[in-house]
């Protein structure tokens, strides 16, 4: 298994973790060729997570935008409400095969934490989730959901108290107890084999989408659009279209208050090569390599780095990355709610916003990956709009 995507990727972890990532790599290498493992994972995805997810023709949006046919890949309809479950079920099953009894995870918006807590409950494993204090306040409902599922949620009070710091703390915890614990990394980031393994587990999205669109339209879409924080839903939505040169792959980063302001999380727009969280990739940082404080209304995109495969797709020009502001995302959040009766996660709303901007430049069909549902965001969007609403 190649540990790198061009110059990006690698395995930059402390010596204490080296045997753990090597053991994980070997186990993954073995089980990815194991039919029983595949059958059990497929069964879980189909009968527990509710796959395949729908590819929905957004008739009202198509009519309103007056361009290509708009399709929505409905990852929001998965059990636990987002694409995160695809990866978590794969990793939990692998951890169980490896004899681990405890799962730990970082979470930003809480979706990955909820998915991990869910898998831990299903597999009867212990579960600890690390979440920035700031995010715990933003996503109180998801915090309670994790507790309900039997997980312990740890408030991370270091640094910016968001996703980046939650990853730091989960890695520190992993070095303490690597013998019985698997770190369920939530995105296509971290040390090898995580970026490859998480991408493989998420690539079920594009495997289904490609078949679905060919069955519906008889031809490939002109574009696939997805939001990018670490980039797991985007890589999942892109992966099986990468060899299809005619399909534009577009990742939407969080521009926060604007890419020119200090308050954004647009790593590909503003980042530089660096080494952090186990990988060489692009990071928002200063001239001395200090990792920047980033900002987005969306807790799930509020991360100063991006997965190494995205950095490589960007470097190769195979995928294009654009930045969407808080304002544009909130407008799209409301737009999809009213136009199609679908409330998307504010993360996914970044992809909807860009699709609205460029729809007219396309013919044929385009696909937007709706990575998660927006119930978790309703209160914070209400507050953004000036309403005094708390969960």
């Amino acid at each position, binding site marked *: 298994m190649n540990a790198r995507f061009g110059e990006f990727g690698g395995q930059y972890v402390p*010596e204490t973790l080296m045997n753990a990532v090597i053991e994980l790599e070997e186990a993954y290498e073995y089980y990815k060729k194991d039919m029983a493992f595949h059958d059990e994972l497929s069964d879980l995805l189909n009968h527990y997570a509710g796959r395949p997810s729908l590819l929905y023709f957004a008739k009202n949006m198509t009519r309103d935008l007056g361009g290509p046919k708009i399709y929505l890949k409905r990852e929001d309809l998965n059990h636990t409400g987002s694409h995160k479950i695809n990866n978590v079920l794969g990793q939990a099953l692998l951890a169980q095969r490896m004899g681990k009894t405890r799962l730990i995870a970082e979470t930003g918006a809480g979706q990955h934490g909820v998915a991990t807590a869910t898998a831990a409950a299903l597999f009867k494993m212990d579960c600890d989730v690390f979440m920035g204090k700031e995010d715990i306040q933003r996503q109180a409902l998801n915090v309670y959901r994790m507790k309900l599922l039997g997980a312990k949620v740890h408030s991370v009070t270091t640094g910016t108290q968001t996703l980046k710091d939650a990853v730091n703390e989960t890695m520190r915890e992993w070095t303490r107890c*690597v013998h019985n614990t698997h770190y369920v990394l939530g995105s296509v980031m971290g040390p090898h084999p995580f970026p490859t393994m998480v991408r493989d587990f998420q690539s079920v999205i594009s495997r289904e989408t490609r078949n679905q669109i060919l069955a519906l339209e008889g031809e490939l879409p002109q574009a696939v659009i997805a939001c990018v924080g670490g980039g797991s839903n985007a890589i999942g939505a892109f992966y099986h279209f990468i060899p299809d040169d005619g399909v534009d792959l577009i990742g939407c980063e969080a521009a926060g208050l604007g890419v020119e302001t200090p308050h954004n999380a647009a790593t590909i727009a503003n980042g530089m090569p660096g080494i952090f969280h186990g990988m060489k990739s692009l990071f928002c940082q200063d001239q001395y390599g200090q990792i920047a404080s980033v900002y987005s209304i969306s807790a799930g995109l509020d991360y100063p780095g991006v997965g190494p495969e995205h950095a490589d797709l960007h470097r190769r020009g195979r995928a294009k990355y654009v930045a969407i502001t808080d304002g544009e995302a909130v407008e799209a959040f409301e737009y999809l709610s009213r136009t199609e009766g679908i409330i998307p996660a504010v993360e996914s709303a970044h992809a909807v916003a860009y699709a609205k901007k460029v729809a007219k430049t396309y013919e044929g069909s385009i696909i937007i990956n709706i990575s998660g549902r927006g119930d978790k965001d309703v209160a914070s969007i209400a507050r953004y709009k000036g309403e005094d609403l708390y969960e």
Partner: protein
Amino acid sequence: MSKFISFITAGDPSLEKTREFIDVLAEDSDIIEIGLPFSDPIAEGDVIQAANKRALEQNTTADKVFDMLENVPFNKIVLLTYANPVFVYGYDRFFKRCKECDVYGVIIPDLPFEERGEASIYADNFGIHLITLIAPTSAQRIQMLATNATGFIYLVSSMGVTGVRGEFTTNLDDIVRQIREVTDVPIYIGFGISTPEQVRQIREIADGVIVGSAIVRIIAEHGDNSSPHIKQFIKEMLKNV
């Protein structure tokens, strides 16, 4: 000189004070480890994380730390930092500055053996030791790591991050024995050492000890007036040796 490595974070509470503390530490240390602060020190516990934060709030940069080190006569300074500050500074430029400042070695906890090639070609070029860490989990890797070690070996006492703790991994003497089969490079044990009794125990199985968090905690408490407290603490730590 005792086989004792002391650690402080550069710029905590200020670079002027770091310069002063180095002179105090030099009295009883054969190697002084200086932390070049990083925003996200993932191998550190609470105490050194907080020191990194204080140092960065003082706008401590690699350039300023190198400028300070240029005038330090002590000739066994080792820098500890993370892969990103070195990579972004530029490996070539970083190790060149180390050479100019007479730095003895560099420790980069998140640059494991398999990834060190991109840095070690420059470190070797300028004659700077890229220090090897060995952990309680290293197992079958010990021989490979030890064979390639130069300067000294940093043996991590126990699982987890830096910081004061009561107990160490039980198989430390076994790890030391395995290292000794392939190299004579001095072995220093660090992570969690804070009492004279621990120093005595460690010295029975390894060449020396590394003390970090316990000193940094004194600086957190006493700030600018830490020098006499550091001096007294190290004397106490070494009383059984």
